[in-house]
């Protein structure tokens, strides 16, 4: 309170110190610090509780695929398969969602009539507000049944690509189904972010390219996309962060198996988040502690992705 920052131009006049001011400023600052403490606490408690099982683990935590932790003697578990599944599911979702999201954002900003565009903005926000468990229910109760024939023909015509090799799972509870639902869930995030940057493209840039005789697509390619690229990348990475940590859609749809497999049309693979949700109710022995160490890995992955996204977005703000 007593320090005067030389960078602030208007120096605060030294007035009477009031109790109310001190209390209010103190509690405001206190809750700010509390947030930092909570975040530090999240990291500290996860590390503290995972230590227990990690030191008892008889296998290499990072290279083992099996999860044999619900015991008191010689637990052997690792996150290799889980981490692979997490990244595979999120990356597939991102590949599906990003082009469509950019398309929707372009539609809302440059193609749709003005009135329709504002309604569509609401609809996108609404999609983001639907709880993930409802997406999961929709996925398992409706979508997987519709996808069955699609998968069969995908395997029939594209089966020579190793990823789409058969035999196709008969239930449709595959990695690809989970990824499609994840894609639907991150679509609004990427769309909202891209839409925001597209709206900020200077009108002069767009009019200049149109005045030079550019078609609408040429205007978008030459004026809008270069300006909006950091926003698209930042939005995609935020979406990736969400997809990495998403639990319910995967836990409800995928029929899990602790393997490392690229075959997205067969049942198998598992993500960290879904594994924790499914295993936790039955965890005994070192089980809970082992799940916490898996959560720590997930926390680290999402932290890196999110900080990268924020960095890209913040840098754009500085230059814009």
């Amino acid at each position, binding site marked *: 309170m007593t320090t005067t920052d030389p960078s602030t131009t208007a120096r605060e006049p030294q007035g009477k110190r*009031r109790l109310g001011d001190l209390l209010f400023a103190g509690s405001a600052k206190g809750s700010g610090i509390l947030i930092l403490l909570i975040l530090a606490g999240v990291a500290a*408690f996860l590390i503290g509780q995972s230590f227990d099982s990690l030191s008892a683990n008889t296998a290499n935590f990072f290279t083992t695929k099996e999860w044999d932790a619900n015991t008191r003697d010689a637990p052997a578990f690792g996150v290799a398969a889980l981490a692979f599944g997490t990244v595979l599911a999120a990356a597939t979702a991102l590949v599906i969602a990003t082009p469509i999201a950019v398309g929707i954002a*372009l539609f809302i900003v440059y193609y749709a009539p003005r009135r329709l565009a504002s309604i569509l903005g609401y609809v996108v926000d609404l999609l983001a507000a639907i*709880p993930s468990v409802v997406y999961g229910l929709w996925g398992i109760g409706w979508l997987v049944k519709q996808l069955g024939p699609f998968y069969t023909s995908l395997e029939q015509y594209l089966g020579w690509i190793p990823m789409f090799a058969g035999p196709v799972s008969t239930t449709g509870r595959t990695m690809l189904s989970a990824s499609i639902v994840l894609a639907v869930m991150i679509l609004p995030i990427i769309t909202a972010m891209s839409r925001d940057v597209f709206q900020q493209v200077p009108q002069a840039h767009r009019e200049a390219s149109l005045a030079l005789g550019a078609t609408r697509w040429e205007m978008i390619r030459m004026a809008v996309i270069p300006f909006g690229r950091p926003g698209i990348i930042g939005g995609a990475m935020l979406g990736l962060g969400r997809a990495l940590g998403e639990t319910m859609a995967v836990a409800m749809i995928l029929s899990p198996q602790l393997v490392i497999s690229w075959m997205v049309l067969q049942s198998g693979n598992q993500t960290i988040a879904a594994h924790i949700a499914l295993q936790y109710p039955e965890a005994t022995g070192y089980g809970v502690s082992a799940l916490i160490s898996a959560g720590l890995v997930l926390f680290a992955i999402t932290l890196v992705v999110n900080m990268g996204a924020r960095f890209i977005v913040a840098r754009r703000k500085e230059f814009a």
Partner: protein
Amino acid sequence: MTTTTKGSATEMPGDGPPPSQKSLLTGSLPRYAAPALLAATAALAAGVLLAFGALGIAQFAVFTVIAYAVVISIASRVVENRRQATDRLVTTIVYACFGLAMVPLVSLLWTVLSEGLARLDLYFLTVSMNGVTPSMDAGGVYHAIVGTIAITGLAAVISIPIGLLTSIYLVEYGQGRLKQAITFFVDVMTGIPSIVAGLFVVALWMMIFGPGKTNGAAGAIALSVLMIPVVVRSCEEMLRLVPNELREASYALGVPKWLTVVKVVLPTAIAGITTGVMLALARVIGETAPLILTAGSSAVAINWNLFNGQMMSLPVFIYSQVRMGGAINYERAWAAALALIVVVMLLFFLARLVSRFFAPNLSR
């Protein structure tokens, strides 16, 4: 359908003599070309699919869009030029993207509505699952509604003061390193996976109360970890919108800073703050994963006590019913999903209404 910008339909003239035989408007498809071609390709798609006996909505839509994209590109290439053809192709793709994105939204709302209405009635909303054996055609979500209200309520009571005070600190008081650190870590906190928030409370509870202790308060704390950053973000944005002139006028009248914040800044921004808080509530009310870990997933009886025993909530109810997997379980899950979506949408639209009708007029 759309009409592309007509003025740019010709090629850019070079320095040499202009292609005199071309007027500005020749060499462009007539306005009715796009809808006419679309209708034609739709008819073609229906015909071909009928001939092969494979007529379904999905196949029809995909076939039509692809056929239309090909036909319009070729037509534009022949009549207009390559650049116009590309533009028309991209226009088709962008419209298709939009149409594709509407599929999940419409189908999700439609399935939840049609499947959920079958079971969602007063009985379902007012009884719990206590004493309901798996095969019984009975039971409801009252205990889950109770849990959702109690847990989300406590989460709101924890998060709103902390979030609001932090945003006040960031906007009115903060400076230097601490402000930067808080801004940055609030952003980081927004990205914490919900299951990790749940694990955090599990670890915390294990340290304090020993293993295996689940209750509603634990769930509320996990939800707070997810809710606080959202509240901070939205309140901060709203406080920044309050014009500085209002603060300066208040200081000029000799009002202390804290009273200026409480009596001038907050009332001006209250509509936006309310909206932000409601949207944050709408987000955490559907959170499932942290509650499975902290409040338990097997409670069947009504429990108002946040500090003792497992507590069911609407999202966890949906999840645990799906895990059981019988037909009756799915019926219950759909009905509960409908109830949950109605609550979320109510919060969502109320928030929009508040921000529209109670926002102060800052235009002058």
